[in-house]
């Protein structure tokens, strides 16, 4: 009965927590990070650097496990790992992805995240949230003269959302059978 009041999640199945093999929590974000780092070296694949695969991986596990602490943890780990590869103080991506993971898990508890449209909306929203928060941190905490291009963020958000739906569909195959 408690699920009936929820706007999108209409059954217990929709809010059931998914579980994955242990290696997937490490290998998938790491693979996303490697792809983001390495594929831009190939001619014609420079655009891959704009696809935030680590964010998509963190969002997926946070959404599907529907655990705020789990989302927080994986967002924190992915963000800090990503920070360590970039020439910037450690914690920039960490803060953004920690918040994204936590809030994604909160959203996952209330919405039917199996639906492609919901997934796309969530990916788009959290990408824009992530980029905006990153920009705010750059300006407010680091006092850098960072700029943001809203049009580019929105377009890239759409691209990331489309790719996110495809990636989520693939990652669904890894879900442990009950």
């Amino acid at each position, binding site marked *: 009965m408690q699920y009936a009041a929820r706007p999108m999640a209409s059954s217990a199945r929709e809010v059931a927590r998914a579980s994955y093999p242990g290696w997937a929590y490490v290998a998938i974000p*790491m693979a996303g*990070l*490697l792809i983001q*780092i*390495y594929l*831009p*070296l*190939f001619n014609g694949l*420079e655009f891959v*650097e704009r696809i935030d695969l680590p964010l998509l991986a963190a969002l997926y596990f946070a959404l599907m496990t529907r655990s*705020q*602490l789990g989302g*927080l943890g994986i967002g*924190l780990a992915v963000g*800090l*790992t990503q920070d*360590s*590869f*970039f*020439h*910037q*103080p*450690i*914690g*920039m991506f*960490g*803060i953004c992805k*920690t*918040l994204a993971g*936590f809030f994604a898990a909160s959203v996952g508890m209330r919405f039917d995240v199996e639906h492609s449209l919901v997934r796309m909306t969530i990916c788009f929203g959290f990408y824009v949230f992530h980029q905006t928060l*990153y920009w705010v*941190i750059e300006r407010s*905490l*680091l006092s850098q003269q*960072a700029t943001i291009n809203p049009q580019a963020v929105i377009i890239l958000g759409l691209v990331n959302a489309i790719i996110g739906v495809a990636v989520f569909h693939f990652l669904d195959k890894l879900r442990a059978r009950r």
Partner: protein
Amino acid sequence: MESLINRYRNVTLLLLAILGQIVLLAWQTRTDADMLLVRAWAVTTITPVAKLIDSVRGFGSGPFGGYRESRVAVEQARQLRSEVDRLKLENSLLQHDLELARRAEELAGFQGTSPSKMIGARVIGATPGAGSRLLLIDRGASSGVRRGMAVVVPDGIVGRVIAAYPFASQVLTLTDPGFAAGVESQTSHARGVMKGSGSGSARVDFVATGPKVEKGERFFTSGEDRVFPRGLAAGVVTAVADSARFQEITIEPAATQIAADEVFVILDPVHQSIPEAGAAETAVFLGPDVSANSQADPTPVAEGTSPATTATTAAGRLMDQYRKIGDAQKHVFGEGLPGSLPPNFNLKVPGANAPGENAGLPSAVQPGRTGKP
């Protein structure tokens, strides 16, 4: 109380995680310190995987790259004879090998001629971000690489090492906004600080309005930053604008391929002089060479001979010689299928290449004086 803690446990942990990272950021910003241990662990973890992928990439861009090109060539040449297809395929593979050899020779030549002691490194990864660009190279502290060392390619400077791990190093490229290097212009010798702009270009700051820098002028490293030795190509001026105190100079980096496959890390820099500026590239008419005219064949040209065979140049005389050798063997140039026997160019023909009867050949092509020992 316990129920209250349990109720807000998740939010409390979130706030602690965020607060912890903010404190971490503040500490790094205030002390200008870096979390070297964390970065070292991360890079060391990912380096073997990156090397593995790089080796796969090398395999893919080698034979399979040639195979892809050959597939295109075969597709385009489907209507041609099979012999032509085979030759095109061979040509494609040889061109690829030639390009690799040329690149290797260029790198070896650069390393051999530079007075600075340097070590070659392969780029095994890149960490591009918003306005930031780093390279990951496969040489680290175990190879003598240290933080702050300059990274160059034959075309010019690439960046500097910002972190040296045991078996890999991170390089901050010159297009990164955090990059800076002391530079000096080639002609006006104006000095300034080259800084990355986050895009493909860079700018030179703090160049006083006194010595006027012109568009197209080249900038070289001045050596004042004690990172890059003096005399390395930095870039070419693409735009100059005057302001109140300084000139606003935009330059295009000399190293056109910032993410090159191979780079050099300068272990022991040696300063060089900045090369003198060359003459302006303008179309200049040059008359015939006097020395060539004095050695020209005084023999009058036979009637009916085309102007191209008047043998007033070395090439013309050589062509004349070949034509006479061909005539002596009744060979008609331009005829015969590929693979047919060419005329014997070593045959001594009086009036062409026989001793004592040369037809005004330059010394370099006379028999017995080919320059070989």
